[in-house]
């Protein structure tokens, strides 16, 4: 542990399938989902001495109630990790899971740990409302008009982005349809099979003689993608966030439940365990933008991350751009001239769902899985916009 500025490598990444809010995981606790992916990710390196894990960093956007009480520590103990392994929950809204990966990598780079786990968990089913159990905004927000945007809902900011960047309703709906089509094709081809750790859901129902009836269901497929959607169906949906708007439930990300986990090691640990890494955490960057156009955040973050790696965006072979809204995804792609063929090849959050703080870890698992499948894939990126106006981008390099 005396080295400094060493590389951090990803050796395994897994996720649960993603459930719709109120769907297959509606009775599953987020700490249980977390425990599941933690067990699954260390299960990929059976020889790992769990006491070597320096920390378990878990992203969660609404760390309260069922996912409060430092869910990281609870999850790792439920996973059966030794009590000597610490855990911390972090929050940067939708980038929390990616931030966890970045923070875990940073700890390894600094020589503070040789083995780290980054994860994310979020159950939007357990949240009574999207802003958590108790919404309470600072009165100071309304003392100055320039601060009003702090109070804007995410959908409204997507409308602002759509207006400013001229993203039409038709383009948003077409983007949403493509997301579903790509996700369904990937499911049909079994492309998510490697990254998904199937989750056995046990539902306790009233039985007989006071004994509950337990029904088991093996959740192994993302629940969000819809085979019955079409441009016509999407066009019929009414705007939700603005009277004359373009953002609908159909071209917005789905509210979801899910968890993901990533196992990172230093070079020393790789040698010690004789593990072949999949990728190096090449760079991570965050940047701020005005809160009223939070969806454009990746435009500020991606160039910073690229500069840190010393590559151009043309070098990115696979981009996981979180589809918070089709409006902001298209605005980001157009502003940076991202190649649509490389953006979300397996669909995005509009189809696959967006369990807020878990998404970063989940989509990291998708990139890592793609790198395992395709030896020509050198650089992959996970990027997203963040509530109150930020963007995050993490770049992974095949090793």
């Amino acid at each position, binding site marked *: 542990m005396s080295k400094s500025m060493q590389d951090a490598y990803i050796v395994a990444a897994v996720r649960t399938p993603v459930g719709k809010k109120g769907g297959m995981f509606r009775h599953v606790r987020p700490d249980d989902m977390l425990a599941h992916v933690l067990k699954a990710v260390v299960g990929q390196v059976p020889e790992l001495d769990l006491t070597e894990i320096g920390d378990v960093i878990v992203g969660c956007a609404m760390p309260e109630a069922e996912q409060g009480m430092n869910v990281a520590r609870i999850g790792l103990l439920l996973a059966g990790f030794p009590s000597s392994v610490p855990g911390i929950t972090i929050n940067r809204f939708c980038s929390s899971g990616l931030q966890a990966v970045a923070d875990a990598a940073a700890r390894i780079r600094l020589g503070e740990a040789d083995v780290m786990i980054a994860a994310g968990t979020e159950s939007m089913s357990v949240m009574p409302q999207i802003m958590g159990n108790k919404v309470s905004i600072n*009165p100071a927000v*309304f003392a100055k008009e320039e601060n009003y945007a702090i109070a804007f809902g995410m959908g409204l900011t997507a409308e602002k982005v759509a207006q400013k960047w001229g993203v039409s309703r038709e383009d948003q709906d077409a983007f949403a349809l493509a997301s579903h089509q790509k996700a369904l094709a990937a499911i049909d081809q079994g492309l998510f099979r490697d990254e998904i750790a199937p989750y056995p859901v046990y539902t306790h129902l009233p039985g007989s003689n006071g004994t509950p009836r337990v029904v088991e269901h093996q959740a192994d497929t993302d629940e969000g993608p819809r085979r019955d959607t079409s441009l016509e169906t999407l066009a019929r949906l009414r705007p939700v966030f603005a009277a004359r708007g373009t953002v609908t439930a159909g071209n917005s990300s789905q509210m979801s439940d899910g968890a993901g986990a990533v196992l990172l090691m230093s070079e020393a640990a790789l040698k010690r365990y004789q593990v072949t890494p999949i990728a190096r955490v090449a760079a991570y960057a965050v940047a701020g933008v005005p809160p009223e156009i939070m969806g454009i955040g990746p435009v500020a973050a991606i160039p910073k991350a690229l500069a840190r790696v010393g590559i151009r965006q043309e070098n990115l072979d696979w981009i996981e751009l979180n589809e918070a809204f089709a409006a902001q995804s298209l605005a980001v792609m157009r502003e940076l001239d991202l190649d649509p063929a490389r953006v979300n090849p397996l669909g995005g959050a509009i189809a696959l769902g967006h369990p807020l703080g878990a998404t970063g870890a989940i989509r990291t698992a998708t990139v890592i899985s793609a790198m395992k499948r395709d030896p020509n894939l050198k650089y992959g990126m996970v990027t997203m916009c963040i509530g109150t106006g930020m963007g995050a981008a993490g770049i992974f390099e095949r090793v």
Partner: protein
Amino acid sequence: MLDGLLEAVARAERDLDALVIWHEPPFAVGANLKQVAEACAAKQFDRLERTVAKFQQTSMRIKHAAVPVVAAVEGMALGGGCEFVMHASHRVFAQESYVGLVEVGVGLIPAGGGCKEFALQAHRMAQRAAGGDPFPFIIQTAFQTIAQAEVAKSALAAIQMGFGQQGDDIVMHPRELLYVAIRRARALAEAGYQAPLPERQIVVAGRNGIATCQMLLVNMLEGGFISEYDFRVGTALARALCGGEVETGMSVSTEWLLDVERHEFVELLKEEKTQQRIVHMLETGKPLRN
């Protein structure tokens, strides 16, 4: 009418066992807007404030009368009529009742104790709930109901929306209304009715609650669902429901809540856009969106 009600309560306390407030449908459709418009035009805001204060005093007399006061409601009980209903000891609703606080339609807020009663309901619910926070009821029920001028379209809905209380009576046949109300009033009297004590420790949502209501409003404003002036009226409503610009979780008195809603009401009356809304309603019978 206020004098009549005050006199009726006084006589009931002096000579009778109980009082039933009844009117053939509609029960009551609120204040006389024509008089309000004329007073506004003459800039008689002090007089208007005194009238509102008397309205509040009447509501409070109904609520704290020494004898039970039963409201027998059929048809519309809107605005001030609804507020009298809310302050009664007990309500008997005909199934076909339309009850609501519709003041925002003319750029005003309830000020006859209606906001105070919802703040009080929030406080009581919070006392029973973990955390003791009155805000969830304010935001999920009271604010949305009043801000959207929602009218209950049945007796059951009126109770569920907070204009009545669990235990109120619903009669299916309107001709039974008065009979049931009189029997209920008599039963309450014979059971040794005790008027409720004035509440002096009401926990309110305060400044944070107002700001969180404004968060809803600003999203509706920016989304083009409401006007700038709707935002202004909504903020006044938030202040009245949240107990004014005091610290969140602070305990206040009933009198303070009445002062806040009266103050907000009169301030709105001074606004040109509220006056335009009142005149437009008088002339067309429809709300003005300005």
